[in-house]
């Protein structure tokens, strides 16, 4: 029943290819986080606003992003938009899908963080003559990022792992795509996926550690 012969050497020979893929994975994760954070700040502010025109669309975004499978969100970006004649490459579709997902989750994280900051901070900033946007950017937002830092790190790890869903829309240059490619050609399924999993693990760990290091430099108060 168990007569599989491990051939690790074959897997390790593909390591340079896998590492190339890892770079693409990391790139998509970082880009999707950068854009996701920017969008999430806007969504969080919109959700807290009094205007229905702001809260409505923001709420729909957050609800869909958080309560439907990430896989479907990526599918929609590739095949869904494709139905309307908008053809995104696998790379762009994957990036858009994960960004959409990141923004939705982070918006709620940021909204919670905003609530934790006393309203008097904004009042103090405004009373020094700062216009609303400047007061938010200089006084409220830095405090928000500190409160939301750990959950944001979690989302970053999640974003890295979500990139593997790209294979379903034909993504073949990231770590998952390359792994799958090698797999169908070599049939060293266990070895190649195990090796790729280790690389995912290491990227995730490195990012978490990097984030902690950044936090200790940024948040000294």
């Amino acid at each position, binding site marked *: 029943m168990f007569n599989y012969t491990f051939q690790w050497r074959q897997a390790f020979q593909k390591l340079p290819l896998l590492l190339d893929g890892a770079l693409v994975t990391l790139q998509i994760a970082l880009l999707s986080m950068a854009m996701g954070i920017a969008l999430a700040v806007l969504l969080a502010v919109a959700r807290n606003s009094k205007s229905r025109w702001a809260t409505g669309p923001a709420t729909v975004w957050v609800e869909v992003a958080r309560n439907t499978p990430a896989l479907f969100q990526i599918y929609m970006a590739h095949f869904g938009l494709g139905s309307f004649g908008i053809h995104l490459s696998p790379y762009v579709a994957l990036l858009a899908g994960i960004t959409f997902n990141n923004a939705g989750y982070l918006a709620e994280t940021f909204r919670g963080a905003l609530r934790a900051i006393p309203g*008097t901070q904004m*009042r*103090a900033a405004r*009373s*020094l*003559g700062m216009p609303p946007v*400047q007061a938010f950017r200089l006084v409220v937002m*830095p405090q928000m990022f500190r409160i939301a830092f750990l959950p944001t790190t979690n989302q970053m790890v999640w974003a890295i792992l979500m990139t593997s869903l790209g294979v379903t829309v034909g993504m073949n240059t990231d770590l998952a795509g390359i792994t799958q490619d090698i797999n169908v050609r070599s049939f060293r399924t266990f070895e190649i996926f195990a090796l790729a999993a280790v690389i995912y693990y290491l990227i995730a760990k490195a990012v978490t550690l990097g984030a902690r290091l950044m936090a200790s430099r940024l948040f000294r*108060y």
Partner: protein
Amino acid sequence: MIEIMDVHKSFGPLEVLKGINLTVEKGEVVSVIGGSGSGKSTLLTCINGLEPINSGRILVDGVEVHAKSTDLNKLRRKIGIVFQQFNAFPHLTVLENVTLAPRKVLRMSKAEAEEIAVTQLTHVGLADKLAVYPGRLSGGQQQRMSIARALAMSPAYMLFDEVTSALDPQLVGEVLDTLKLLADDGMTMICVTHEMTFARDVSDRVAFFHKGILAEIAPPDQFFTAPQHPEAQAFLSNVR
């Protein structure tokens, strides 16, 4: 000059200011006293436009605070306000707290803003705390920093909203001393306070608020020795 003319202000069904009239001359120090909920703190936040008013007018140097055409951000540069709860910016050092608005609002250079900040912080006795984050300061120190932060904008008027109420008793003195220095320098000040000794010693006039009405206003020696309004008499006999 701050002119407050027949100002009414409601929070929902609750009317907290019921037609206030008060003029504060340049260089004058007015202490505002009265029971909690008498509307005295609300008046301060109306003066710098943080709160809208329902009717009446407030003029600061002739500029109507609640007129639509008024640039509030600009007007607030000359009205400093210090709150009961300090409101230090926790993510910035003491020096950064004080230089933030001069740099970002008045567009001063970093060096210029820091020079002013150091002067102000030295004035309030915090010259040795420049690189410290507010979380490491005592309440009294945080409050003095907030005063320096407001003063760094070189305001023409200072509003103090019960600035010693959240402090431990032994820290009250250091903050009041700072206010006294400021009054001696000729700053125009409106101080909402529960410190009767301060009101008596430092202010030119004492305004007594009762249930949204300015019930009595008089020079301190007159007010504290012979209050006219029955509520003022009752209030003074309670706080003594």
